[in-house]
């Protein structure tokens, strides 16, 4: 007898001959995210995870693997009625059942050599459980609890699924560069694109001494959370100070933010080219701040050499906050350390910049060398994830 976890994947099934590629990625991701937590096996077209220790902990982590739609605790036992009914009884007993719980037993018998047929197994096991747990009631149409039995070389018993996060396995959608700050939005944007299978590289701009050492620590913590969701790159950190200092000295204050953002897009392009990234990802949400009006987005967007994915574009701040809380980034994001934009936030930034004006201002700048140097000196910071 052994405890295992049945893994179900959803959309993958629809992907025709790409299926094996998707499953390969999914397996790689599970092995990476749950490193040292147990083994993954494939049998009868299903994925099973064999937890080394507590299945609860493994289940919680598996619920963070994109591509999985369900995670069900399961038992593998010998083909023996006592064992099957005993295991089912123990598993149901572990659940915290409400006063009245409707249930049904569903059996698949692939191995016809077992002496009971599927109807008989369902009926006998149902009777056994009813006798042991007075709070159970049979409902074959919409049961709250579903006990599933599969008869193969061994017998497998599963209970209800815990929901998986859905989406597609990270790495099936190409590589993208996430412009990440210590704020609430950009980590959520990164999470959403990880969910659609993009292999996200987190790129951060820090500008010491205008930003605090601790604000970089905060970004590292955020990336650590995203690593739990399948992000596999270290934090790419660009020293933005020389560029920022030149802008501060040469650019009218109300244009500072928009020009800084244009520089960041240029740097994003350069990093994408170097890392073969196919898109940029930002946490912009329309109208949230001055640099996120449609005019501002246009003035940064025209510079991008690849699509700029903005998954939060239509969301309200409250929705984003809710997501950040669910993902686990919110409590880190709200710690009070400013990023490089905040020290110099002008009191009245332009909200509807004209591209013509911006380009005119940029003519007076010569930042080519500084941009190149910033990318050449890019630092890759690996993050120690505290796995406890």
């Amino acid at each position, binding site marked *: 007898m052994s405890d295992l976890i049945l893994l179900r994947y959803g959309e993958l099934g629809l992907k025709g001959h790409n299926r094996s590629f998707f499953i390969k990625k999914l397996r790689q991701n599970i092995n990476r995210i749950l490193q040292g937590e147990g083994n993954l096996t494939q049998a009868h077209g299903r994925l099973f995870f064999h937890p080394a220790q507590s299945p609860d902990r493994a289940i919680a982590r598996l619920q963070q693997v994109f591509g999985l739609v369900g995670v069900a605790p399961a038992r593998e036992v010998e083909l023996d009625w006592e064992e099957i009914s005993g295991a089912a009884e123990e598993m149901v007993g572990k659940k915290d059942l409400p006063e009245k719980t409707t249930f049904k037993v569903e059996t698949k018998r692939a191995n016809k050599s077992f002496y009971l047929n599927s109807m008989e197994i369902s009926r006998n096991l149902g009777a056994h459980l009813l006798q042991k747990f007075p709070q159970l009631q049979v409902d074959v149409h919409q049961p709250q609890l579903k006990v599933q039995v599969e008869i193969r070389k061994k017998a497998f018993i599963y209970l209800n699924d815990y929901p998986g996060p859905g989406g597609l396995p990270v790495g099936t959608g190409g590589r993208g560069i996430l412009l990440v700050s210590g704020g609430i939005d950009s980590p959520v944007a990164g999470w959403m694109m990880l969910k659609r299978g993009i292999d996200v590289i987190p790129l951060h701009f820090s500008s*010491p*001494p*205008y*930003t*605090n*050492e601790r604000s970089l620590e905060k970004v590292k913590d955020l990336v650590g959370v995203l690593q739990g969701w399948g992000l596999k790159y270290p934090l790419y950190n660009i020293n933005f100070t020389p560029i920022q*200092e030149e802008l*501060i*000295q*040469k*650019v009218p*204050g109300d244009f500072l933010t928009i020009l800084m953002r244009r520089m960041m897009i240029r740097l994003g392009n350069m990093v994408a080219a170097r890392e073969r990234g196919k898109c940029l990802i930002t946490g912009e949400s329309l109208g949230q701040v001055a640099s996120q009006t449609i005019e501002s987005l246009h003035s940064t967007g025209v510079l991008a050499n690849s699509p700029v994915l903005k998954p939060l574009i239509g969301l309200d701040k409250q929705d984003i906050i809710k997501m950040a809380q669910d993902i686990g980034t919110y409590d880190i994001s709200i710690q*009070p350390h*400013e990023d490089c934009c905040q*020290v*110099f936030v002008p009191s009245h930034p332009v909200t509807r910049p004209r591209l013509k004006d911006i380009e005119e201002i940029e003519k007076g700048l010569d930042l080519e060398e500084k941009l190149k140097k910033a990318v050449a000196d890019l630092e890759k910071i690996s993050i120690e994830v505290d796995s406890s």
Partner: protein
Amino acid sequence: MEGIYMDAAATTPARPEVIEAVRKMLGQDFGNPSSLHAPGVNAEKEIKKARRRVAESIGAGPGQVIFTSGGTEANNLAIRSLIRPGGHCISTPIEHPSVQETFRFLARQDCVVDYCRVDREGNIDIQHLEQILHPASCFLSLALVNNEIGTVQDLEEIVRVARKKAPRILIHTDAVQAWGKLQLDWDRMGVDALTISAHKTGGPKGAGALVVCRPELIKPLLWGGEQEEGLRSGTENTPGIVGMGVAATLLPEEKKIRAMTRIKQEFFQQIREGITGVELIGPSPEKSVPHILNLSFPGLPAQVLVQALSREGIYASSGSACSSHRHQISYVLQALGLEKEVASSAIRFSFLDDISSSQAAVAADKVIQVVNQMKKVMRNV
């Protein structure tokens, strides 16, 4: 540590003799002073020695020293013991948070707390003190030395005025930034309770003391095994206490303190010559406590400047270490009535007692260089 540490008001490195004593109490002399056997008796003896040393450093009696976990606990213990429920208390708007927050808490209960005005240099306004005192005032707490700007209060005069107006008043002073920087004479100060902390002057963190005139006035915050004559239960922090005792024997002598004042003046002079527009906050350097100098560089955000200096190996602070994470303008500087522009650009330099003239000169050069560079960048903002 590379660089020059100029944040001694936040904390100081333990002196080698202190480290040795702490190590010994953690290892060889690990006994619990409450135990009856030889190791316990030995630990008790060591604590007794430390108590005597700490008492002697300010001219008090050993029976008047209650060891605590540090300045915050000692301040809490003093205030919560010496107020009378519903009574009238007096403090100032420039106290350390451990005093200010305790009063705030008590004001939400049933105490009435009045705050005595301070002038631009942080000196308390004695006339105002006289006005707010009344015969039934029960408690006064004020810091002998302000931790952000280094103002030294005229404690003897304040005590005299307070006792004249309110004969039954009990007086506490937070002397955390004074211990080891000023000559403290318990009898002359004439206060009822005084707080000191070990780590501000070469001792270990986690050790401090409340020195009290009459221990019977103290009401314990912690209940348990009746250590410290029942006034502070909990197994004694023997390494911390003994380390504090050793630190008490190594407080800098007057000559060294005079040298610190001179070095601070030179440092200030050099910066004033190298940077236009620098503003001194608090009293003039010869009047303030020897180790603290607070300067403002208007136009440069203090936290940015601290970070820029840190990259050059100069470790100073914006506001006090306890509150500088919050990035608000220091309430102390606000209470002085400084303009926002001056207050938000204030940096506290605080010197270790073994700083040399040449180190201070190197540090001043770096400050000048960093500030002038940053001024160029920030000119537009």
